[in-house]
């Protein structure tokens, strides 16, 4: 799932002056030529730092993202849904594993990343701080949040860092199953009994705001990302991705005769752009900084899982084994 609305740190606008300018020039030329950067290549400290931050956020979002949908894992109705939901949530855990590995190649051990997650030091996608209130919420998440994630991840898989691109290629293939599964699930609810339709409409009402938040703050108010775009760390602007999502999915939502809870949502026929009520970016900030409906629970659960598994891991830990950074 996931990948979107990364929170980047303000970069020192323009050229990192403390870097070796010759190496920097080569590095930028390689990226401009479409070559990938591999873990042992020279890279500016700022590039490393921002990539770790981004890939780590992405990994955290996968492992935390397993929780809202996992909410319904014991209650999924029928074999088909139950097995598919298990496989989907399992994939999210698998994606976290792949992404943590990609981030590790940059020199930050997985243990440190997990500690930064559970102490609230590093972030994850805002959307997972909202609850999956009914079964229909899992359907809407699997369809629309994963749809948003694919748009973001397909863009990012063309980025400059080799290990991240390789992880994303595999992730995108698995996401396409998630998207199909989610769509299938929403279609069954939307074309089902009145009770089912009501459930799915309610879920859409609840999730529209997080979905609009998903791609991150409007470009007008985002931090400066010019350098990150040149380095192919960030591959598309938040607003562009949001537009692409609306283009692809609003018609599919409307064809199921579901109502999108934004009276201002319409496509401007002249500009070809979607117009919508500007999402509440103050709420976005508040939630990402810890004050959302489920932040506390999500972190408490991750902490508890780490604690519960600790004896298992310690029992098989060998004193003479040294952790080294994975290769690629």
């Amino acid at each position, binding site marked *: 799932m996931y990948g979107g609305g990364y929170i980047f740190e303000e970069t020192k606008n323009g050229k990192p002056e403390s870097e070796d300018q010759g190496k920097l020039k080569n590095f930028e030329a390689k990226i401009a030529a479409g070559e990938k950067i591999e873990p042992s290549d020279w890279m500016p400290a700022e590039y490393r730092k921002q990539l770790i931050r981004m890939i780590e956020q992405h990994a955290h979002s996968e492992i935390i993202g397993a929780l809202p949908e996992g909410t319904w894992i*014991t209650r999924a109705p029928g*074999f088909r849904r139950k097995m598919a939901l298990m496989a989907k949530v399992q994939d*999210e855990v698998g994606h976290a594993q792949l992404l943590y590995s990609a981030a590790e190649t940059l020199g930050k051990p997985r243990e440190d990343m997990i500690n930064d997650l559970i102490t609230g030091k590093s972030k994850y996608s805002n959307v997972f701080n909202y609850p999956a209130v009914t079964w229909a919420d899992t359907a809407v998440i699997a369809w629309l949040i994963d749809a948003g994630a694919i748009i973001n991840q397909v863009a990012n898989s063309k980025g400059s860092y080799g290990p991240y691109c390789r992880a994303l290629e595999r992730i995108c293939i698995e996401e396409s199953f998630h998207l199909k599964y989610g769509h299938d699930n929403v279609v069954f609810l939307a074309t089902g009994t009145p009770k089912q339709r009501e459930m799915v409409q309610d879920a859409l009402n609840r999730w529209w705001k997080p979905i609009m938040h998903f791609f991150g703050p409007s470009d007008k108010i985002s931090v400066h990302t010019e350098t990150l775009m040149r380095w192919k760390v960030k591959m598309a602007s938040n607003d562009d991705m949001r537009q692409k999502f609306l283009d692809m999915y609003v018609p599919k939502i409307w064809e199921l005769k579901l109502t999108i809870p934004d009276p201002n949502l319409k496509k401007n026929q002249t500009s070809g752009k979607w117009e919508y009520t500007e999402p509440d970016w103050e709420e976005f900030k508040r939630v990402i900084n810890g004050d959302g409906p489920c932040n506390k629970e999500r972190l408490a659960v991750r902490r508890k899982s780490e604690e519960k598994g600790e004896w298992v891991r310690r*029992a098989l830990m060998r004193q003479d084994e040294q952790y080294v950074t994975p290769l690629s």
Partner: protein
Amino acid sequence: MNLSNEYIPAVKDLIFRMADDELILGHRNSEWTGLGPILEEDIAFSSMAQDKLGHAQALYQVLTGMGESDPDTLAFGREEKQMKCCHLVEYPIGEYDFSLMRHFLFDEADAIRFDMLVNSSFEELANVTRKFRGELKYHTMHAKAWVIQLGNGNDESRIRMQNTLNECFPLALGIFEPSGFENQLIESGVFKGEAVLQERWISEISHILKLANLSLPDIDSVRPSYGGRKGIHTEYLKPLLDEMTEVYRIDPKAEW
């Protein structure tokens, strides 16, 4: 071979027992998804839980072919007293030691049972067991590796594994609760019976537990936890069924 009518109730009973075990254990093990002791193991354990549900579905499908309802109705539409699962699979997931030991004890029995059924005179059942042999082989490889490694890990893991073995053993013996149809199953050539299965199981797990440095409780001094096969269950099954069918029951007419 066509199953003679007189054996049908016996065979149905056997398949219900097997399918209900797979369903409930698959359900329990799925609870670890996203919460496992380390990401890599979380993934592996979830796969095996999915496999279990797949086995349950395939077994219910055989029953459907014998005139029972469809697999979803059989799994999600039966009352507690109609369920024939053993007590071992009903218990909450507990700590990972319990879940692993249950996985080990159950899957060792399951693998032997499937192996015994590969040449069953009831072709439909034999086909199912042939299909899933590879999956079960992985399950037992996984279970065995964990039990042996944790048994030989550190003091804490060895004590935990021994304690949980002591707790699980009487429950696991409930897998082999005689069904009342044993003679018919044996005489029809469908299945060689629970007693044979239990004997093979004891010998297999004794060997592995020795490698794990764990001691099997004396079988004569424990009382097997019987009742499940006759619809008498632990306090844990009813809430599990209620939870499992919560969405299903919102609108029973609906297609989910």
